[in-house]
């Protein structure tokens, strides 16, 4: 059975859930832009957005009492939201491969920014 959210964690839970999706979308957007425009600097923002997502998943896991098998949901979100935008970009690049030579092939990503 599930354990409800504590009163003091109410607001935090809502915003953590929203931040997961917004963080995931921002990561996907910045990643796609960085790859499309060959702008490695944007990758920093992409990973920053992913960090927001990861922190939000951790907060949601704690506040919503995602224990036991619910932990796999948290893990699935972390892995899924990291890999899905990359897979989607690869699909974009492959489906558009014949029409746009300006897009770098997925096998040659831009250089990662040095920390």
């Amino acid at each position, binding site marked *: *059975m*599930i*354990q*409800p*959210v504590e*009163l003091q964690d*109410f*607001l935090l*839970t*809502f915003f953590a*859930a*929203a931040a*997961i*999706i*917004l963080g*995931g*979308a921002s990561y*996907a*957007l910045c990643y*796609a*832009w960085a790859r*499309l*425009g060959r702008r490695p600097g944007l990758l920093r923002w992409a990973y920053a957005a992913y960090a927001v997502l990861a922190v939000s998943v951790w907060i*949601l896991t704690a506040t*919503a*009492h*995602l224990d036991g*098998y*619910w932990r796999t*949901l948290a893990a*699935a*979100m972390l892995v*899924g*939201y990291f890999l*899905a*935008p990359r897979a*989607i*970009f690869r*699909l*974009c690049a492959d*489906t*558009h491969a*014949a*029409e*746009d*030579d300006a*897009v770098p092939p997925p096998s040659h990503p831009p250089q990662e920014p040095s920390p």
Partner: protein
Amino acid sequence: MIRRAAALPGQVAGAFARLDSHHLNGGQQLAVKYFAVAMVLFLAQLLFGLLAAIQFVWPGFLFDLVDFSVNRMVHINAMVVWMLYGFIGSVYWFLEDESGTEIAGLKWGETAFYVLTAAVTVVVLVYLLVQTGPGNDTTRWLINEGREYIEAPRWADIGIVAVMLVFFYNVAGTFAKGRWSGISGVLTLDLVALAGLYMAGMFYATNITVDQYWWWWVIHLWVEATWEVLVGCIMAWSLMKLLGARRRIVQTWLYIEVALMFGSGILGLGHHYFWIGTPDYWLAIGGFFSALEPIPLVAMVVHSIYDSGTHNFRSSNHPALAWIIAHTFGNFLGAGVWGFMHTLPQINLYTHGTQWSASHGHLAFFGAYATINIAFFYLAVQQWRGNVWMGGNLAHGWRWKWAMGLLNFGVLGMTVALLIAGYEQSFIERAVEGSTWSGYFAAQTHPWFVQSMVWRLVFGLMTLAGAVLLTWDLLTIGAGETRAALVIEPESPTGETGTVAAPAA
């Protein structure tokens, strides 16, 4: 009197015939009729929504004349029906282009349109003038079925299924006669699911849990599965028309989105089964698959950025493209973010059935469906005028921009106002007071709730103003325009795009 009544159908058909344009093929003529009724229903939806919003602020308003329950019912039913009218019209619009042949049984399709429109008119009049019945079989067959969102009486249910079968025959028969494509294959299979799922709402079970179980098959599997796929087909065709995107690309993306939508959406149904008495395993299934439901929406955002980047926003119809972009982001925010915020059972325990659901519903329906229909209306009106210019420097271009701004800000404002009200309800009524009657009234009279309802009304007025401006714009845009539309040819494999001006008809 009798003679006047007998002449009415002819007068109605004559009025619709004035919408015909020699620039359109048979399917497109029928589509315009669907679009016209859709716009009327859209305005009706907003009007009754506004009446319901006023009743939240002044509960005595129209009491015992048109009660809140009736206003809310007409508001939601008008929304469902106008969206269906928009989808059906959009399909009729591109049917001949996509199949390369004339529509099979178009006369049947035209008859079905008049039957459906007459049925919708009668149902709405009964909702408003009769409203309630004794709650027996007569009520169920003639007045109201009593099921939220699909209240249409049983005779109308049967009529809707008959019309859908005619629509299916038009679509499948035309593709069978002409040529099949990826879009047409997905569309035809989706229409089987669309018609079939409606049947799940046409029988009764005496056990309320079983009854609700099947009722959600209609609501959720229409809105979060078959409608999304239908919109995917309409979107795919629109992108080819607007951006010159290549068929291979949009069809590949259609398959991906369909796989993701069905993969997450079908079992995402579980989030409606949390609290209706179904077994515990639905908590896990609903929670897990609901968490996956935003992924196709994120995919759409990435793909739209990719396509916009590769096509440099070059389009033949600026208002339509703007509304398609609004659709991408509206769908993501309304369905994705607002949905996931309260879809896990640990939090849905508190938010279920509060204004939080209404907040999600407003933004999701507008973002995912209203926007794509409006985009298609602009595509249609361009062709209706003779394929005229709808790019930059459009005469009275402020109208579509302001209409878009007012509608989007209005809906977003209502969404945020309802979100605040929903949060307050979840906290005070559910968490603090434990879902008691006193808790319910404490939440309904709390300043946060009362002020939110006032703001919802203000933003509702803004939305209505946007819809009125949109109607005016759709009726007048392109009138007197002599420039020919920019025609964007599909890109060649080498990446060269041929752009030529078509002669204005």
